[in-house]
């Protein structure tokens, strides 16, 4: 049931991206309602898959590479739905929904094998850390997606090309604001997630160095973005570039750590 529900979720995410891409094929406006409904159906299937995993494991299972990636995909799509419903603008789906689908597929390929989780207060503490960290990463990914779209749209506008991107991408200012808000949400989520992780590590003597380095790396990236905006007045192209580059670095760092700890199981 878990792989089938995941498959259904991925199908809905990709279908939502396809509907959001309609303007490029048929020169019509993407139907906001249709895209959001498809994403919601995907979220429903995805949540069913994770609920099945929880039932199978006997406790909320967010640890382990497969469950972790799947949960990250779910959180990314939830934050996407929130942003797009508020903005009545679905072009972010073009980037974020395929990313969520890819992450979910990768999680399933890695195997949905949760680590053994602690019980009681320790379990709540760990779950809170994981949820907040994933929210932070998902928001950071949203900021990076908005930043990437900003860079693409800016290039089209600078070179006076008036094709589909010009017509159907949101204004640069909107993408800049999404990038700003998402990076703040990413900063808050990762800061709280890391604070809980630090407390947990100290209290239970549970230190996993690669995880700490990667988590700190992600936090430094999103903090640099937020501080650059707040203290240095970064916005527009510079902020977009920073969010895309730092997030890509965080993903690259993840891949490096993951490959280095393939047989030791010491990383996410």
């Amino acid at each position, binding site marked *: 049931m878990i792989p089938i529900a995941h498959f259904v979720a991925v199908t809905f995410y990709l279908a939502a991206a396809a509907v959001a891409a309609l303007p490029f094929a048929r*020169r019509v406006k993407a139907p906001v309602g249709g895209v959001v409904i498809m994403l919601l159906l995907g979220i429903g299937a995805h949540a069913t898959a994770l609920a099945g995993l929880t039932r199978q494991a006997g406790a909320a299972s967010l640890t382990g590479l497969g469950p972790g990636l799947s949960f990250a995909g779910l959180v990314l799509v939830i934050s996407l739905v929130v942003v797009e419903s508020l903005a009545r603008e679905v072009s972010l789906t073009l980037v974020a929904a395929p990313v969520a689908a890819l992450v979910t597929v990768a999680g399933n390929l890695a195997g949905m094998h949760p680590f053994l989780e602690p019980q009681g207060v320790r379990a709540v503490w760990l779950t809170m850390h994981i949820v907040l960290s994933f929210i932070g990463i998902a928001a950071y990914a949203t900021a990076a997606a908005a930043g990437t779209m900003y860079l693409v749209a800016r290039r089209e506008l600078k070179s006076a090309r008036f094709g589909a991107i*010009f*017509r159907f991408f949101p204004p*640069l200012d909107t993408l800049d604001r999404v990038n700003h808000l998402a990076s703040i949400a990413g900063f808050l989520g990762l800061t709280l997630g890391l604070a809980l992780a630090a407390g947990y590590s100290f209290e239970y003597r549970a230190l996993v160095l690669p995880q700490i380095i990667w988590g700190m790396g992600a936090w430094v990236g999103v903090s640099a973005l937020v501080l650059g905006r707040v203290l240095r007045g970064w*916005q527009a*192209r510079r902020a977009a570039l920073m969010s895309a580059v730092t997030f890509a670095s965080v993903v690259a760092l993840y891949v490096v750590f993951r490959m280095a700890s393939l047989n030791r199981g010491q990383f996410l």
Partner: protein
Amino acid sequence: MALIVAGVSHTTAPIEVREKLTFRPQDAVRELALLRAKGLIREGVVLSTCNRTEIYAVEESNDTLPDISSLLSNRLGDDVAGFMYVHRDREATAHLFGVAAGLDSMILGEAQIQGQVKAAWEQCRAESGPILNRMFQISLLAASRARVETGIGRGAASVSSAAVQLAKKIFGGLGGRRAMILGAGDVAELALECLLKEGVSVAIVANRTHERAQNLAERHGATAMHYEECWESLHDVDVLICSTASPSPVVTVARIRASIAARGDRPLCILDIALPRDVEASVGDIGNVFLYDLDDLRAAAAANLEQRGEDVPAAREIIAVEVQKYWDWVAGLAAVPVVREFREEMDRLRSTELAAALKRLGPLSPEQAEAIEHFSRSLMNKFLHEPSVRLKAAAANGRGLGVVDAARYLFALENKPGTDPQKGDSTDIA
């Protein structure tokens, strides 16, 4: 009775002809009243804009066209035949619906024409009637549907609206943004009006002749500035529109670079609508500067027009559906009373003849009388079925209002109450 439209438009006549054929509202009403008084038309509406003059009419007789033609020729002072087009019935309806949707406009899909069609109809209401009222009403609905359901009205199609569209693509809404206009001529004024309409909060007008800048600023509630001082304010500006008559560029890389440091990362949109250009081309290479000249604006407008063109078939489909609905209504309005009266008349004749026949036959059993009654009714229904169906179909296909008139004449129904949609039980539905 037939529906007719005769007129000239930008596709058939040059501006010198069109301007002579323009009707002021009071002239239009007067001319229509004259045509009605002569018994040539039952209803009429004149649509007169800078791109077209068209007379829509419901003909009283079949010789209306020469009179309409001579009316236009008199106005032109020459024979109008070479410029004039004529459509009848269904084609006339499809033409009006296409006009209202902007499909026949000089700028495809422009929205202004819909308002002009409505205004023309309202101005001529005294000379209009149920047939035209309904047609103009549906034309406005069809135009709205075509605009909403297809992309024929989407995107900016003129240089000034393309300029606003480009600025919006950078800043989202322009409400609260600051704009500076270099130059105080007509083009600058048009640009200023466009920006103020979009909610730009601070507009600065700078010109070499300060008095002209001051006059323009006063007219629109903007701020005038001396040309030499305006560069100091550039760091606060989001949109810069250049429209001076300077023979060489006045906005240089050095001037923009000087203001960039104080701007931070905020984008600056420069719209150079001057010819020769006011802005050095290399200004566009500066980081957050978005520079567009007239060619770029025309390209943006052309791209939108091209997109609109692709949606024309979809708009035409909507119009075809609405034309059919209209003619279905006409069929009901024109043919149904005639068919009803025709059948009643035939039934009266049948009853009279049946009574006479029964009298001549002498005493019959009730079953025999019933059989003869049934035979007469059945025979009449069989005779009348095909003409009734064909009459309704003729009226509905847009070419049969004449057939309906003919039927009324042939069966002497002209003076029967309820068979004339103009004089009978039809009401002004608009």
